[in-house]
């Protein structure tokens, strides 16, 4: 279990602070993928991730790599499926409505164990929704995305620097476990600019014994998700489930801050965690001992770590840019050991630090009074 209690992405930097460059989130994610050895990118324009596609449109041909603006998100993800089936490193990106269209192929790739990295720069829903930042695709991402029994690793950066790092991680996980991986960002992370260290990771290449390269001097290979015989499909599902358990054992990532003496813990990921971070500072100035628990992998969810945290006398406040999705996993994890309150905004609206602070004050008062939330 990797419990990365990390510093802010810019603080722990090795180089001089002045060597940092200002990059837009969408562009930094794209460049990180390029530096990670992405062979092919397929996409379709949608706000708020269009700059990612535009960056790829310029950079990939410069490098002699593949860029295709597809006819739809269906086209994009299936081009990705084809390219990834040959063992190529593939990135596909979209925003919420486009992700819904990609659910079908994601299910196929989970079934056929095809590695690919998918970026979702989330916007408000349901339906066409808004173009504002949101975290309302949590369920979609962590509960499988498409049809059938499967999970895919979901990585949730809270800063552009962390997004750059997690892009490389996403490719590593995809190839190590032969699985699609989702990088779950939001409109803020996509559109904002922040300084990043221009240092990128380049995951090493491996030979794949499953990649389709033409049956030249070896038996043919087939990448399939169809197993018509129920016995065969169950066997296949057992293989997948064993893999999911292995990922859950090995790949949990999270960050904690000031949890040691905390009476209250805010649980939040991505942009919501940054808002919670500011609220935590304000609360501490008022003498309310608040800590922050920030899941970085949303699946596998840091369930044992949260459960352990909940065994101390504490209450939790979950903050999301949604009507309440991750809060369900938090409640499942703590199994009633402590009260779990929720605060969220939807539609592209963001909770402000003062809003979260008000919730913390309320929770603090309730806990002190010995009441339920």
């Amino acid at each position, binding site marked *: 279990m990797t419990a990365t209690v990390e510093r802010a992405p810019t603080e722990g930097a090795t180089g001089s602070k002045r060597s940092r460059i200002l990059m837009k989130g969408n562009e930094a994610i794209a460049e990180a993928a390029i530096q990670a050895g992405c*062979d*092919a990118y*397929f996409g379709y324009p949608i706000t708020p991730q269009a700059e990612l596609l535009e960056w790829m449109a310029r950079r990939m*041909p410069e*490098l*002699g*790599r*593949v860029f*295709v603006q*597809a*006819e*739809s998100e*269906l*086209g*994009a993800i*299936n*081009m*990705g*499926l*084809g*390219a*990834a*089936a*040959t*063992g*190529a*490193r*593939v990135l596909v990106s979209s925003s919420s409505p486009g992700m819904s269209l990609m659910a*079908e*192929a994601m299910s*196929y790739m989970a079934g*056929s164990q095809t590695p690919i990295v998918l970026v979702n720069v989330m916007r408000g829903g349901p339906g066409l929704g808004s173009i504002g930042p949101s975290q309302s695709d949590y369920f979609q991402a962590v509960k499988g995305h498409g049809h059938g029994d499967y999970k895919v690793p979901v990585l949730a950066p809270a800063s552009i620097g962390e997004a750059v790092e997690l892009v490389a991680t996403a490719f590593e996980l995809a190839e190590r476990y032969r699985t699609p991986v989702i990088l779950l960002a939001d409109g803020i992370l996509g559109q904002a600019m922040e300084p990043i260290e221009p240092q990128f990771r380049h995951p090493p290449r491996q030979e794949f014994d499953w*990649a*389709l*390269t*033409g*049956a*030249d*001097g070896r*038996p*043919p*290979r*087939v*990448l*399939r*998700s*169809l197993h018509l015989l129920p016995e065969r499909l169950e066997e296949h599902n057992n293989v997948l489930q064993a893999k999911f358990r292995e990922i859950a054992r090995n790949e949990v990532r999270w960050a904690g801050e000031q949890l040691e003496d905390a009476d209250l813990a805010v649980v939040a990921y991505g942009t919501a965690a940054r808002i919670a971070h500011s609220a935590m500072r304000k609360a501490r100035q008022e003498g309310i001992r608040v800590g922050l628990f920030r899941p970085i992998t949303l699946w596998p969810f840091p369930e044992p770590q949260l459960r352990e945290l909940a065994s101390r006398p504490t209450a939790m406040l979950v903050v999301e840019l949604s009507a309440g999705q991750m809060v369900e996993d938090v409640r499942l994890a703590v199994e009633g050991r402590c009260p779990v309150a929720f605060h969220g905004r939807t539609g592209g609206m963001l909770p402000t630090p003062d809003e979260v602070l008000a919730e913390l004050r309320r929770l603090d008062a309730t806990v002190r009074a010995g009441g339920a939330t």
Partner: protein
Amino acid sequence: MTAVATPPRVIASRPELLTDRSTHYCPGCGHGIIHRLLAEVLEELELAPRTIAVAPVGCAVFAYDYLQLDWVEAPHGRAPAVATGIRRVRPDSFVLTYQGDGDLAAIGTAEIIHAAGRGELITAIFVNNGIYGMTGGQMAPTTLLGQHTTSTPTGREAGAAGFPIPMTEMLAILPGVTYAARGSVSDPPHIGKTKAMIKRACKAQLDGAGFAIVEILSNCPVGWGMTAVESMEHLSEVEKVYPLGVLVDRSAPARQPAAAEGA
């Protein structure tokens, strides 16, 4: 000359690319013939070692059990997009899609039109038997007017169910399409012509000329409620709606192959 010393003359045998197993196709189904044609062409052009084929959803989903190639299964209708991804990252591969009429002419119209529009260097084999065989014989976009299916029980009527869609004619007008033809498996002469079309469509990809498609009119004895022989004879009726022949053969390359780095 002694008769004993003369080895028996082989006039037909199973192409090596075909596996030695019975297909799951219904008796009399045309898919078996088309699989064989493909195997023969790929062997004659020595393409099998670098072929990556895309399997559809529909009766031919199990094509990978019969043709000894590298295969990837595409979601329903998405084979041309999947093939695009493969061909772009592996410019040295030979990429083939095998799709039925539901796959190509209904759910996958966007993908086939845009792959053709981009002039992707892929070869599409489009098997048109005018019906959804695998799901029990429902109407396809290519079902003839008046034809009885389980979802047009009184016969396809244009007012309610629309007209048959001539996909290959539609594709043939796109400048990215270098070769488009329609053949049939109704009898040996037609089968021979269809094989020549498949070969030409494969060569178009090898020449880097553009997108190539061969539509093959095939039968579905079970779905059509006919004997195998009746269904083959009935293809002459189908050919009246979907005329056979080469629709377009643009010899000049439509586009340069995309610059791409191999995986």
